[in-house]
């Protein structure tokens, strides 16, 4: 049913390894992207004209930087940012470098996702908090983040799926995972079944992320009766 190559790869554990590496890279890169993207997104929404601490210039400059990185196709950004990975890690090879690329590519995306989630929090609730004498920091930690939580989780699911997609592209600069298996053993060696198996496995991973994420978001959302 499958090509000889598939059985060989399976017996050597390369496909299984691909699954694990894809998941591993996606999780690590998502975590780091939120480390930078969450504060960035919060600053973007707080400094907005309608935010709790409007700072038009800060907002414009950060907004420009975010848009700049978001407008570069990831595959080009990856190649362009190789020196950055070399600067940070001392090497532009391997999964470490790939994770640096993913974080650079995904952080601005995450920032926009976070910004839009935070902006969903009703102006009335913020005004109520202000009327009680909340400081801006208290509004951020006790109103904006908790109230936006279900939306932030949904955003994280979307971001994670995007990062998973990016990670497959990273095979072109030497990243491993299902993307690499598909390109090297499937595409380059003409084994269509391997390409398709990698596609199906990726679809399965995305589905699992989506189902788990949506379930968590729904469970945490107290607006649902």
């Amino acid at each position: 049913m499958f090509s000889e190559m598939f059985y060989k790869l399976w017996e050597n554990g390369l496909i299984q390894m691909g699954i694990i590496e894809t998941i591993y890279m996606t999780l690590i890169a998502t975590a780091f992207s939120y480390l930078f993207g969450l504060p960035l997104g919060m600053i973007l929404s707080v400094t907005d004209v309608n935010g709790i601490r409007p700072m038009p210039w800060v907002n414009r400059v950060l907004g420009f930087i975010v848009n700049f990185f978001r407008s570069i196709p990831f595959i080009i950004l990856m190649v362009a940012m190789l020196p950055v990975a070399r600067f940070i890690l001392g090497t532009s090879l391997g999964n470490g470098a790939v994770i640096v690329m993913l974080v650079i590519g995904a952080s601005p995306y995450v920032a926009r996702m976070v910004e839009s989630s935070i902006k969903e929090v009703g102006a009335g609730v913020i005004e109520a908090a202000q009327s009680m004498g909340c400081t801006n920091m208290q509004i951020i930690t006790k109103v904006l983040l908790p109230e936006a939580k279900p939306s932030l989780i949904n955003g994280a699911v979307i971001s994670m799926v995007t990062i998973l997609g990016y990670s497959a592209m990273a095979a072109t600069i030497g990243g491993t995972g299902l993307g690499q298996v598909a390109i090297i053993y499937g595409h380059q060696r003409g084994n269509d079944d391997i390409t398709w198996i990698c596609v199906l496995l990726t679809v399965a991973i995305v589905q699992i992320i989506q189902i788990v994420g949506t379930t968590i978001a729904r469970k945490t959302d107290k607006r649902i009766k």
Partner: protein
Amino acid sequence: MIELKKLSKTFASASGSVEALRDIDLTINDGEIFGIIGLSGAGKSTLVRCINLLERPSAGQVIIDGQDMTAISKAELLKMRRSISMIFQGFNLLEQRNVLKNVCFPLEISGVKKKQAEQRARELLDLVGLADKADKFPAQLSGGQKQRVAIARALATRPKYLLCDEATSALDPNTTRSILELLRTINQTLGVTIIVITHEMKVIDQICDRVAVIDHSRIAEEGRVSEVFTNPQSDIARDLILPQDRAALDTAGGRRVRLTFDGLYSRAPIISQLVLDCQAPVNILFADTKEYEGVIYGHMIIELPTDERQADKILAWLSSSQVGWKEEK
């Protein structure tokens, strides 16, 4: 005491500046329920937001208990806001916190220990009649219940003042009545001074001691509710208080006279007596009486017969009676 002195607020917008408030002078005494009524866009919401400086006035002063709110530091302002609570039309509860945690929120902000805060919150939920809903989330409550939670939350820090911004406008008439009763109880038992912003006459009618009518960014009229209601001076107050009688005046026909009842005469059969004495028919175009502070007040508009002799006879009768009257043009 809250004193507003020459308060003005101008908003800059793309199409030029908009003057939301102009030269507002108001004094709100401790312990009273003060109403501010006006049509949408009159500036009343801006006015109430200027009291706790959610909106910074463009000019003038907001003096609360002798302290000029426009002159104090940010930190002092945040502290002052804890003694000036606010409730809203949209309730503005934290949707991801349960009822108890919502009421605890202002206490949490001011650094009260969790256990003490929860104890205080439970007392307040008891006061507003929602002791059994402590573990529910806002989405599980009705509008009236949400506003009760908001009231409990507003009282958590033992404020001296409570600002109500259209607090009953999203509620049905029965719920409105029960929320207003709760506010009155709070005013009487806790001595909280309440400032009510509304576009609904019945709200002012039911709980306010004094009222200011705001129109086109200015105070059009101010006084005791019973006075303003029985004898509105400004056009806007008349429109708000007696919306239907404008329509009555628009209808064509004979001369029209407005009768003003001042409590004593509303109990007497004035119109019957008039008709019997003058032997002339009158047409009642509009009538509205209300009870304030246990006495009946009201207005009536009657249309006189087209026969001038009969009409004059009726006017003479009215002059000799103790009914207040005025011919409407």
